[in-house]
């Protein structure tokens, strides 16, 4: 029963308030994309054992989408941040790196 702090409304949101939206920071490949790019965009997922950047929606709360960095092995949440961004905040990346020195880093 996970909890995340919604970066918009500041609420520590229960999993039952949230809707999981899968891997974050995917690049949309629309018209004109190659078959491979389209496949990557639609289906290929990192599915890491460890740090995962992902999307959540505070569906039964403020309704906003946000991003989270979470460990899929321990379920630790390293932080949440705005969904209106192309990459995680540098300080969050730094924080994770400190906690998980073996982590390959944000790519």
């Amino acid at each position: 029963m996970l909890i995340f702090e919604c970066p918009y409304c500041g609420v520590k949101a229960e999993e039952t308030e949230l809707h999981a939206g899968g891997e974050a920071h995917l690049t949309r490949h629309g018209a004109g994309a190659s078959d491979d790019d389209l496949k990557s965009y639609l289906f290929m997922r990192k599915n890491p054992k460890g740090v995962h950047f992902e999307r959540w929606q505070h569906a039964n709360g403020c309704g906003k989408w946000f991003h989270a960095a979470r460990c899929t092995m321990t379920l630790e949440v390293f932080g949440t941040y705005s969904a209106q961004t192309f990459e995680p905040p540098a300080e969050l990346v730094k924080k994770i790196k400190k906690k998980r020195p073996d982590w390959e880093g944000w790519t």
Partner: protein
Amino acid sequence: MSNRIDGMGRLLNRDTPVSFTFNGKTLSGYQGDTLASALLANDQMLMGRSFKYHRARGVVASGAEEPNALVNMGEGARFEPNQRVTTTELFDGLTAKSQNHWPNLNFDVGVINNYVSKFLPAGFYYKTFMFPRFAWKHVFEPIVRHSAGLGKPPTEADTDRYEHFYAFVDVLIVGGGIAGVQAALAAGQSGAKVLLVEQTAHWGGRAVVDGAIIDGKPAEEWLIETLQTLENMDNVTIRTRIMGAGVYDHGYALGYERITDHAPETNAPRHRLWRIRAKQIITATGAIERPLSFAGNDIPGVMLASAVRDYLVNWGIAVGQRTVVVTNNDDGYRTAIALKQAGLEVPAVIDVREQVQSNLAKQARALGIEIREGRAIASVKGGKRVTGVGVSIMQGTGGAQEEIKCDCVAMSGGWSPVVHLWSHCGGKLNWIEEHAHFAPDPKRPPLGDEGQGFVITAGIASGAMETGTVLQNADAAGKSAAKAAGFASKRTRVAKADDVATQVMLPAWILPTNALPELRAKMWLDFQNDVKVSDIQLAAREGYESVEHTKRYTTLGMATDQGKLSNINGLAVLSDALGQEIPQTGTTTFRPPYTPISMGAIAGEARGEIFQPLRQTPIHQWHVGHNAYMEPVGLWHRPYCYPRGEETHQEAVTREVNNTRQKLGLLDASTLGKLIVKGPDAGKFLDMLYTNMMSNLKPGRCRYGLMCSENGFLVDDGVVARIDEDTFLCHTTSGGAERIHGWMEEWLQTEWWDWQVYVANVTEQFAQVAVVGPNARKVLEKLGGMDVSKDALSFMGWADGILGGFDVRVYRISFSGELSYEIAVPASQGRAFWDALHAAGAEFGAMAYGTEALHIMRAEKGFIMIGDETDGTIIPQDLGLNWAISKKKDDFLGKRAQQRSHMASKDRWQLVGLETLDGSVLPDGAYALAEGENANGQRNTQGRVTSTYHSPTLFRGIAMGLVLHGPDRMGEVIEFGNIDGTTISAKIVDPVFYDKEGIKQNV
């Protein structure tokens, strides 16, 4: 006969006798009894039968770890199987029946399994019952099933209530022994919000039974004072009868409260499931005594030493008159001493250790108890009750036994901390050699949402074995939990108690050490599931070396007690058989719940009508009042049809279709999704969402649109109305409103966040009524207030105005092919408007119609239905909807996906109409057959039916379907298969069966 001892029984209220029945016999006990103690008081030692061999079984423990004594309890709607007598508080009128036997407890035919038990070792069923092949299902499995199982199934619906309860605390403490109480005090004094729960009805745990001295006074006194202090603290809540059932991720815990189990006539919910969110959780869950493995250790009368002591001290019961104590540690002596002091006989303490010189042993000797050192029980005499034990030397094979007569054996194999809650979420364990048990490793706790440890153990649950250490440890736990939850701990005093010096235990996993095979085959590890030492050894020999393999092969620890008594002993025997250390073998995974919890409590209040949220339109009550047959559509209930008198559903639907086509039909279309999309970029946004162009729609006009997923598949459709330059109103399907609203938000928030668009879901703000049929305009004109003529409001137009005094928005759209207006009014006026339409429409033949008539009319007209023509694998191109796919737009969701080879293929099945040659109705979902079979031997097909109805308008079956190259094969007759092997011939036709020219809707 009573086994009560006068003057003993600290939990009993002897002034209040309680009457109950066991197997039909009326017995009596006292308030404060458990069912177990009351049965023992009535000398009812035999309480059940084991799972596999149907051996006679008595109670072995006094608490939640009890594996044997499970009963069928209650009657009728309150019947419940597998109730553990040790955790069932006695109440007046309780009825209990023993289980897993036939015809009765004393004489059980199933015991034949016991006599042939030699032939039924672990996993025998994997090696047998294979021939003939069908015999497993028809012969062997039924026998196994009827022999297995424990209690009887309940037969009636439960009439009790259950509820859920939320609690948010800084520190949750599970366990109300002295450790939990001390931890609560320490945490509470820091100011943290504390919840302390105890699974039984009583505080104090073992310390009060064993007469510990705390702060120079009896533990009981200290307890009462400390509980009073806690009661007086506003930030501390203490509750009994709540079991910590499970610990889940991020500080979530379940509390299982049994509110009225002990008082079923109380007007209150039976169970309450506490959903607790705690910053820190302290598990002060105590420890469980282990049995010892010796031949015949399952015979009724063989009990845990601590349980014998509990029954004596708490309930004033002499389980036996002559009790032999067998032990591998000092704690067993406490039982011997307590019994002796109560005036009962203790012919011997059999201690597997050589030369026992501890304080407790000395105390026992001083009382005149004989201690047999370096000895073991090699056999237990008796069948349904112990009559004696055979004693041999520990370091032997079990020969040369000396018999000691007794009617009770109290065994003590050492104590294992209760680590379940610690382990549920990944807390790790260390093997502690000194005590031969697994204890929590405080360095590797379960991790919370920020990676912090969130569970701390206190007292004996940490492995602290003596009173003084327990209190110190619990105080520290309380303080660290409070600190971790953000509360500075105060320097408060810890209660003091002296630790008793003990002599180290001897981990003795089999008695005697070199017991012969015939003895090992009678040493029970898992009492309920009948797993013996020999079974574990067999599993090891056969290569089931992983502890999980052994567990699964032998069923060790898989019974309702989940191995609380058997796990460590089983692990030890397995490790020994494999020649490896116990930590190397490891444990099986601890899973919630700690003890079984009722399904009723898990389900909570949500049952019957409110099992799920129910959505009703403003007109719902009218439907109910008019005998509507309702169908669930998502969480909505919609009228399927309105049968009148003796009408069948089909007759009602036919009437509704005919009336709508000929006169005037009214449909409650309020469930239709209504989304407002507004902003300077609204048109651009909708151009991305819909396959067709929306940005060039003129205010005042409507357009039918399709939405696809990024994967190209058609997901929703509906009519879009442009309200003004910046504003659109998008209709979605009834089931799609929330989904599509979410979909829009997702794109706006996560991809096109710089676009200036807002979306609002106004589905429930408006009631919507479809006014349909040749008389539709007449009724609106009668209501009056706005011009609804063809010129003023043409097909696919909309207008705001007033009708019959109601503020309305009228859309001139049609899903039936008739002259049709869909009219939205504020939800609060929906019912009044509906009534006004009926009143005004009476003279024009107004009649409500339901969803089935709606479906038939749309099918007659060849309109697709999301969910019928589509199923998540269909693209618009399959449905002949190319006209609704813009060629002008660079991009829209799904466009690129639809260009992939399989989607662009000319060989996709495409939408056509289907007419059976004989006029019959094609079966739902029927497939069009093609020649031959595929490589997997499956019949080739070339299409399928997507919608099929009897058309009351055309007096024949009509259908829509997807057919290979269908649109190019008009007029061709193809064969549809039926499940019974017959086929039905149908002609491929245009999917529009009714009014192809659109004359009727466009008047």
